[in-house]
C-alpha cells in the first residue's frame, strides 16, 4: 500500500467499493439462488475527528455498511483501511486490536446487552479481554469511572439490563464502546429506539464525549434532524449506494441529488421556509428490492427529476465532484445552477 508523506491528512478510515451481498435461497426446495445486494459499491473517507452522518431509508444498507466496516459481517468485495491497515486482511489477533480502536453503539440497547450479565460484568469483560485496567481491582475502579462518564451511578453497575430504563441501557452501550478508548466510534442509529426526551439527552452525551475524547464518528440515522445536529458531513444512501455526500450545511441548504431533495422535503421541520429548495416532493412507488435492483441509476424508477430519460435507465452514475467535499451521483445534475429548481 502506497503512503505519502502527508500522514496528517490521511483519513482514519478509507472505504473503497465496499460490497456486501447476501445469498438468498428461494423457490421450491430452495433451488433458486439470489443475491441480495445490501451494500453495492460504497466508498467514503473518514478524516480524523470528523463525524460523518450516514442517512437513508430503512433497508438501504446503512447498518450493513457499518457492520462490514468493523468486520462484524464479512464484506463480499471492496477495501477497508483503518489507520493505513487493511482491515479485510486481518486475522483474529489483529481483529482484536481493531476492536480496541474501533467500537460500535447499536440501535436496540436492550437486545444488544447480554440479559444474564450485570452491567458491571459486561463492562469489565471488555477491559479483561483487552487487558486494559490491570487486575480485578483496577477493572472495578475503571468500571465506576466509565459509569460516571456516561452519567450513571455505581449502583447501576449491579443491575441487569432489564432493570434499567431505555436511556440508561443506551448509556451502558456507550460506556461499553468507550471502555477501550477507541479512535473510531460507529453509532448505528443509537437513538431511534428511544423516547424523544431521552433522545436529546443521549445525543448531547454523545456529542460531549465526542469532543472530550476527540472521537472520529460514523453516525447512522434515518432521522435527518439528528444527523444535522451531530455531523460535519453527510452521506446519503439509496439501495446500497451513496448517492450524495456533502458538508452538512451544504447538503441541508442546497441538496443536489433528486433523492436527497425528496428526503429533505419529506422531513418534518419546525421552521418551514428556513431551507432552500423546500417544495413538497413526494416520491412515487416503493424502494425497489435489493435482490433485483433497477438497471442504470438505482433511483430512476422513482426519480422526480424533470430531465429523467432513457440515459438514466442505462448509465450507472458515479459520484462526481461538485464542490469542496461535495459529490453527487446523478448524470442530470451538472452545473450548480440546475439544483435550484
Amino acid at each position, binding site marked *: 500500500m502506497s503512503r505519502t508523506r502527508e500522514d496528517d491528512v490521511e483519513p482514519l478510515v478509507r472505504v473503497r467499493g465496499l460490497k456486501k451481498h447476501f445469498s438468498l435461497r428461494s423457490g421450491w426446495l430452495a433451488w433458486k439462488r439470489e443475491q441480495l445486494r445490501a451494500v453495492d459499491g460504497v466508498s467514503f473517507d473518514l478524516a480524523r475527528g470528523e463525524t460523518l452522518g450516514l442517512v437513508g431509508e430503512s433497508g438501504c444498507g446503512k447498518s450493513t455498511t457499518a457492520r462490514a466496516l468493523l468486520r462484524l459481517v464479512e464484506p463480499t468485495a471492496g477495501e477497508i483501511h483503518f489507520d493505513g491497515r487493511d482491515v479485510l486482511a486481518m486475522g483474529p489477533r489483529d*481483529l*482484536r486490536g481493531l476492536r480496541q480502536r474501533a467500537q460500535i453503539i447499536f440501535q436496540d440497547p436492550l437486545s444488544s446487552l447480554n440479559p*444474564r450479565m450485570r452491567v458491571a460484568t459486561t463492562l469489565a469483560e471488555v477491559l479483561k479481554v483487552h487487558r486494559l485496567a490491570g487486575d480485578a481491582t483496577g477493572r472495578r475502579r475503571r468500571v465506576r469511572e466509565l459509569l460516571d462518564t456516561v452519567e450513571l451511578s455505581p449502583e447501576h453497575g449491579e443491575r441487569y439490563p432489564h432493570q434499567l430504563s431505555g436511556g440508561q441501557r443506551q448509556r451502558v452501550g456507550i460506556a461499553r464502546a468507550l471502555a477501550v478508548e477507541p479512535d473510531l466510534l460507529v453509532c448505528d442509529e443509537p437513538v431511534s429506539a428511544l423516547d424523544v426526551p431521552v433522545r436529546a439527552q443521549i445525543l448531547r452525551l454523545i456529542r460531549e464525549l465526542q469532543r472530550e475524547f476527540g472521537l472520529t464518528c460514523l453516525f447512522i440515522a434515518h432521522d435527518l434532524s439528528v444527523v444535522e445536529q451531530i455531523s460535519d458531513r453527510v452521506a446519503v444512501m439509496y439501495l446500497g449506494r451513496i448517492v450524495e455526500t456533502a458538508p452538512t450545511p451544504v447538503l441541508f441548504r442546497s441538496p443536489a441529488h433528486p433523492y436527497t431533495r425528496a428526503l429533505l422535503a419529506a422531513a418534518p421541520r419546525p421552521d418551514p421556509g428556513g431551507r432552500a429548495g423546500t417544495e413538497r416532493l413526494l416520491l412515487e412507488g416503493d424502494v425497489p428490492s435489493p435482490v433485483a435492483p433497477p438497471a442504470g441509476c438505482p433511483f430512476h424508477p422513482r426519480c422526480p427529476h424533470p430531465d429523467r430519460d432513457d440515459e438514466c435507465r442505462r448509465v450507472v452514475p458515479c459520484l462526481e465532484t461538485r464542490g469542496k467535499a461535495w459529490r453527487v451521483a446523478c448524470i442530470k445534475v451538472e452545473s450548480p445552477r440546475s439544483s435550484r429548481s
Partner: protein
Amino acid sequence: MVGYIVRRLLAAIPLVLGVATIVFFVVNLAPGDPASIYSAPGVSPQAVEQMRQNMGLDRPIHERYVRWMGAMLQGDFGISFSRNQPVRDVIAQILPNTLILSASALLLAFGAGILIGVVQAVRQNTFTDGALSVGTLFFYSMPSFWLALMLILIFSLYARNVWGWPLWLPASGMVSVDHNAMGPWEQVLDRLRHLVLPSASLALVLAAGVARYMRGSMLEVIRQDYIRTARAKGLPERTVILKHAVRNALIPVVTLLGLYLPVLFSGTVVIETVFAWPGMGKLMVDSIFQRDYPVVMAGAFVFAVMVVVGNLVADLLYAAVDPRIRYE
C-alpha cells in the same frame, strides 16, 4: 423465595392426594384377588376368607379408602403382602437405587444432549450437523426397551462371548455376585460398570430430545444482538459461544428438566425390569404382578411426590439461570 416454595408445596398437596386417590381406586377395582394368590393351592375356602379378612379386603371399598388414606397421612403405608414387612421400609430400601439410576441418566442425558446441540448449532447446515441430526433422531424414535436389549446384545453378550472385548459391561443387577469379595476401589468400579448400560438406555432417548432442543435454542441465541455485541467487544469466538451464547441458550432447556422427570420415571419401570435393577420401577412391576396393593399404591404416591418436587426444583433452577425471573 421461601414463601414461594412453601406456597408451591402447599398447592401440591391436593394434587398428590388426588393422584393417591386415583391410584387407590384403579388398583382396588382392578380384577384379581390378592388373597387367592398368596394362599397355597388346595387351601380351604375358609382359610382364603380368613386371609382376605386379615388383609382388610372384606370391607367395602369406601371404608378401605378412608382407612388407607388416614393411615397414609400418618406415614403408614401398610404392610407389603408379598414381603411381609412395612411398605415404608421396602421403599426406603429401594428408593435410593432408583435415585442413583435416574440421577446418572439425567446427568448423562443433559450433558450429552447439550454438548451435541451446541456443536450442531455452531456448525449449522454442515455435514457434522446433518450427521448428528440423523443420529439423534434415530435414538429419539427408538423405544427404550428395544435400545436396552440391543445394548445388552452388543456390550454384554457379543462383547464378552463373541468378540472377547476386555471391557464388556454387565447386563443385570447393581453389583456382581462376588461384589463382597472385592476391594473398595473394585467395588466402586463394579457399581459403575453395572450403572453404564441401564443409565445409557434411559439417557440416550432423553439426550436426543435435549440435543434437538438445545440446537434450536442455540440457533436462536446466536442470532441475538448481544452476541454481535460480544463479537464487537473483541472477545474470542470461544468465549462468545461458551460464555454468552450457551448460558443464555440453557434457559429454555432447564424447563425440559421438569418435563422429562415423568418420562424418566416411567422409563425406569421398563429399564429396571430389563436390567433387573432393584429399584422402584422394578418393585412396581413385581408388585403389580403379585397384586401387592399397598406397595403399588405407595410406589405411585412416591413417584407423584418426586415429579412434583422435581418440577419445583426445575422452576427454581429457571430463576437461578435467568435473572429476569423472580419468584415472589
